[in-house]
């Protein structure tokens, strides 16, 4: 065994949670960490997590995190002797890896040659086929392919199919196509997206397996030819081809399939001479798996097809770290693993000190990706300031977060706020634990997918392990409905939020802080507050103090803000007694049911009531400011971004649903379609223009 030569200082060429996570291991190992950042990230978590930071440039990735020469310059200036790319950005750019090596620095990852071979998805397939790894049918399409040419390739591959970017990853430049008619549009937009994301617009088509699971195998290789697999992760639950829930072990496979997977993965990695950490991804045919589960004698190999190799650490690597351990043959004790530590050691020439037999799994880990996104609006990335974000820290829960309370979620980067990983002896316990931790986390300021994640973790279909890549699409309506609080919980939340607000205001007031809240000797006034109801109606809460120290609370529908004695439908009438108020935690009894709730909010009037469950409310402002610009027939940008194309001009007649403009944000294209038929009276934007969320793009007069 050679003595590893550890890096002294590692430049982390990334941002967000992965940079924070790498910095943590560096610190544990006594290695100096150097962050890079863009102008908008000067106060970001990853900058604070590292020992030093170097400013790269402007907010857009091309001026900062994708600017290879600036990063290498930062590394040499700061005295780094190694570069860790994290994932995304330049992690799978072989030219960058080579440039790092050429600058005399160590590259924490596989060799540029391996990255290049696997980065070309078609080349990867060719090499895997040669090594005897099973494949999904697929074929490259020519850059200048006409519709006829496209159709020919498509028919050879077979429908349904996926349009994919040769340089792809992270779901960018991917489109599912079910009929030949959809093909030209899908190819055109995938090409634009691929060009924007990777600077490479080459595409290929691949057969879409109707019901499939996405299962991948973690591999690690050292520079001495030792290669290990660290079992599998299942990542079937995806939206827009991005993983949302990941777990290990996979609930859908048996040991025989697992052996096929790990065998194929190690075969593939060995054929590549793989070093460092990587992932071999497979598509599993759920129909085959189901037949095997039902006891049918179907070969395990029939279920498995190679997808691609990711030549980097994966977002979901923590689930592996949580379940895989090294068993000490003498004591039987399990030692935890840290994949970043292994990456650093391998880069230093270390040889893997364990055998495959020593690696075992115990328990179950589930990771969810908490995204800033508007789920009902079709998973649109959301931006804003995180006024409240207090991860629930507890046994068996790991938070890998890239943002902290008070920070802005900007439109420039990936909208993932954090990964939350639960570990427990069984899958059900992990899911239960994770759902509870999510629900106990104050999270206000940007829309998130939290409610959806909780709904998934409590969904019966998920809990029995019936998860294919179509899971979210199929279950979305049910899951979204299950997350909506009923009228009673919402009314109760309004009542508690009003009480909390009044108590806080009063107890924090310089005047009369010790008087009972809203005390009035004649009852001429009482505390009152109005919230937006679920249907855009007004829900008004009234509180009246009683002489025994309790309060009579009423929640009324259709009583507008500010009107003290207007009547409305009574949604809730309850006796409330406050036990204690400790900042955002209110210990109160509502009709004899005593509960501790946390109530957090932001200056815009958003209020979140936590416990039990999460209810999000919006306070009606007491003094509404100037009403927002109201334009009949306005078609607005769903989010901040840049206009890619404007499809209409002033005077055009448009039908309802007709494409008006395309806006690109976070590397995704969003189609803005006419809200109603009519004549275009105004086009306010041109292609290339930056627009704010909600900005009027096109006005259609109906």
């Amino acid at each position, binding site marked *: 065994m050679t003595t590893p030569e550890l890096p002294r200082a590692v430049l982390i060429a990334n941002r967000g949670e992965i940079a924070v996570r790498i910095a943590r291991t560096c610190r544990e190992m006594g290695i100096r960490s150097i962050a890079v950042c863009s102008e908008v990230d000067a106060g970001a978590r990853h900058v604070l997590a590292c020992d030093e930071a170097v400013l790269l440039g402007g907010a857009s990735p091309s001026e900062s995190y994708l600017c290879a020469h600036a990063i290498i310059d930062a590394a040499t200036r700061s005295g780094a002797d190694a570069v860790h790319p994290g994932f995304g950005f330049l992690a799978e750019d072989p030219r960058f890896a080579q440039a790092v090596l050429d600058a005399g620095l160590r590259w924490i990852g596989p060799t540029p040659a391996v990255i290049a071979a696997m980065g070309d998805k078609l080349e990867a397939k060719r090499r895997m086929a040669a090594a005897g790894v099973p494949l999904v049918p697929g074929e490259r399409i020519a850059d200048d392919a006409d519709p006829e040419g496209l159709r020919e390739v498509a028919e050879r591959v077979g429908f349904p199919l996926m349009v994919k970017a040769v340089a792809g990853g992270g779901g960018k430049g991917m489109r599912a196509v079910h009929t030949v008619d959809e093909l030209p549009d899908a190819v055109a937009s995938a090409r634009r997206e691929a060009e924007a994301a990777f600077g490479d617009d080459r595409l290929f088509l691949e057969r879409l397996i109707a019901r499939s699971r996405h299962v991948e195998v973690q591999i690690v290789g050292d520079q001495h030819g030792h290669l290990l697999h660290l079992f599998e992760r299942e990542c079937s639950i995806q939206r827009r081809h991005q993983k949302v829930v990941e777990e290990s072990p996979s609930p859908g496979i048996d040991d025989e399939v697992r052996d096929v997977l790990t065998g194929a993965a190690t075969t593939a990695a060995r054929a590549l001479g793989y070093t460092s950490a990587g992932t071999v991804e497979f598509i599993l045919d759920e129909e085959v798996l189901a037949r095997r589960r039902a006891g049918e004698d179907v070969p395990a190999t029939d279920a498995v097809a190679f997808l691609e190799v990711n030549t980097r650490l994966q977002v979901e690597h923590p689930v592996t770290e949580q379940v895989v351990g090294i068993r000490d043959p003498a004591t039987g004790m399990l030692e935890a693993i840290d994949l970043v530590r292994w990456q650093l050691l391998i880069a230093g020439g270390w040889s893997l000190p364990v055998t495959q037999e020593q690696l075992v799994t115990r328990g179950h880990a589930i990771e969810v990706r908490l995204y800033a996104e508007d789920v009902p609006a079709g998973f649109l990335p959301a931006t804003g300031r995180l006024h409240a974000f207090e991860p629930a820290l507890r046994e068996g829960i790991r938070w890998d977060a890239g943002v902290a309370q008070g920070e802005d979620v900007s439109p420039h980067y990936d909208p993932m706020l954090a990964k939350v990983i639960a570990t427990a002896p069984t899958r059900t316990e992990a899911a239960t634990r994770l759902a509870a931790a999510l629900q106990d986390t104050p999270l206000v300021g940007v829309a998130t997918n939290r409610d959806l994640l909780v709904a998934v973790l409590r969904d019966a279909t998920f809990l029995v392990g019936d998860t294919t890549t179509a899971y979210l699409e199929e279950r979305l309506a049910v899951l979204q409905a299950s997350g909506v609080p009923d009228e009673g919980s919402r009314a109760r939340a309004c009542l508690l939020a009003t009480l909390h607000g009044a*108590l806080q205001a009063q107890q924090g007031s310089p005047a*009369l802080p010790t*008087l009972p809240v809203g005390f*009035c*000797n004649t009852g*001429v006034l009482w505390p009152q507050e109005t919230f937006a109801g679920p249907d855009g109606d007004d829900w008004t809460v009234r509180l009246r103090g009683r002489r025994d120290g309790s309060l009579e609370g009423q929640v009324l529908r259709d009583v507008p803000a*500010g009107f*003290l004695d207007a009547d409305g439908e009574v949604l809730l009438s309850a006796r409330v007694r406050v036990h204690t108020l400790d900042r955002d935690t209110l210990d109160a009894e509502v009709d004899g049911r005593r509960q501790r709730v946390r109530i957090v909010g932001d200056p815009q009037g958003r209020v979140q009531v936590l416990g039990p469950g999460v209810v999000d409310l919006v306070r009606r402002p*007491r*003094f509404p400011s100037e009403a927002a610009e109201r334009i009949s027939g306005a078609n607005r940008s769903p989010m901040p971004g840049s206009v890619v194309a404007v499809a209409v001009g002033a005077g055009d007649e448009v039908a309802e649903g007709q494409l008006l403009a395309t806006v690109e944000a976070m590397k995704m294209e969003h189609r803005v379609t006419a809200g109603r038929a009519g004549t275009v009276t105004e086009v306010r934007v041109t292609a290339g223009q930056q627009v704010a969320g909600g900005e009027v793009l096109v006005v259609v007069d109906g």
Partner: protein
Amino acid sequence: MSHDVLRSRVDPADEVFQRNRAENLELLRRVDEQLTAAHGGGGSEKLARHRSRGKHTLRERIALLCDHGSPFLELQPLIGLDSDFHVGGSTIQGIGVVSGVECVIGGMDPTVKGGASNPFSVTKSLRALQIARENRLPTINLTESGGADLRRQQDVFVPGGRTFRELTALSKAGVPTISLVFGSSTAGGAYIPGMSDYVVLIEERSKVFLGGPPLVRMATGEVASEEDLGGAQMHARISGLGDYLATDELDGIRITRQLVSNLGWTKRGPGPSEPADAPLFDPDELLGIASTDLRETFDTREVLARVLDGSRFEEFKAAYGTNLVTGWGSIHGFPIGVLANNGVLFSEESQKGAQFIQLANKRDRPLLFLQNITGFMVGTAYERGGMIKDGAKLINAVSNSEVPHLTVMTGASYGAGNYGMCGRAYDPRMLFTWPNHRIAVMGPEQLAGVLSIVAKAGAENRGEVWDEDQDRGIREMVESQIEAESNAFHATGQGWDDGIIDPRDTRHVLGIALSAVHTDDVRGGDAYGVFRM
């Protein structure tokens, strides 16, 4: 401060307790009835018309102006009770917290006779301004009033003029005055904004002019619109009467709150310095303690045990002049001295009270008077013992004491005892009444009896035949008339107090009052009239 803790001997199962409680609850029900009438304004039809114009009611305007969850102490809510006028004087006045600042807030109710003021409105508004001046409370007037009720102009015109003088006196003293004009503010009413430090006008709503279109046409023949004569735009852009121009009612209230928040207002007096923990005994029991039959006495310490912070009370001179309880405690954290009646005042009680008042002035400590007094003792022994001289000492001390006084009428208030215990004429900063309270020169029975004895002596002098039956009839008549004139409802209707309060609210009402009092310096004096020795 470490204090003794009061004990209680009250037995809620006791028959007298139960009777008092039942009767007090009945009195409070009557209070509530009247409050409902007062707060109902001009009735549902007027209210609906007011709302149909997109206007908030006066109560709503006050509620929107005050901080969320802040307390509000309404003043003189039932003035004008049993008169020909709307109970409450068609106005709401009170102390509320606006942007963290305690303010006197008030306005005419535009749903009652267009917000025109009657004699009770004038009395009540002037009282609120007096409270503002004596305690240095910033004042916010929510103006929407057609001016004086012209049918009662003779009762309103002369005293009402004082309103404007009070406003400028406040301004002179450095106490901010704000007028937020919601509607018309005409004739004399125009001087409310005219005399205020800050004027907030609302577009298309505020109308401020000395004479409206009809009067101008009568006087000069000029035909002018309301907007030309006194619209918000005109005053904001041309006359300069308006300082802030709001787009609507809510915007006007928002601007006013911002204005107060930016005043940089600081209170001069010390803040609360003691723990403001609740009393150890349930204030609810005050209803069983407060006698409705004033021949039955109660120990005033039972009241203190349910009003003072933590029921803590350091009694002063406990063994001397025992019919007057004196000592130190605190309410909502504000340290106070207490003088509380436990029976008729003798010489000892009077001297003890006079001494205690002087001590409170040395300590700069506000004084709370709990009145339940049938008077100074009469009889030859007491006259010979110098009762008048000693009573005079107490009245002298009360009159010339410079610390703030607060008075609560917890039972009887008869004779000169009312004066010695800081009755209305002695200008306590605020005075509140329990519903079981009776007030008169003497008890109805005594008064009727005195009249009867005097009449009988007169008849005998004139050699007339004394008709016992007729005398009994007259006595009963006088008794019931005095009874009616001396009950708490009559007293509060006359404006002899700052409001009837529920005894259970006493501690909180006094808490607000004490905090208001500490907006100005709390300083004792050391100059008195000649104490007759």
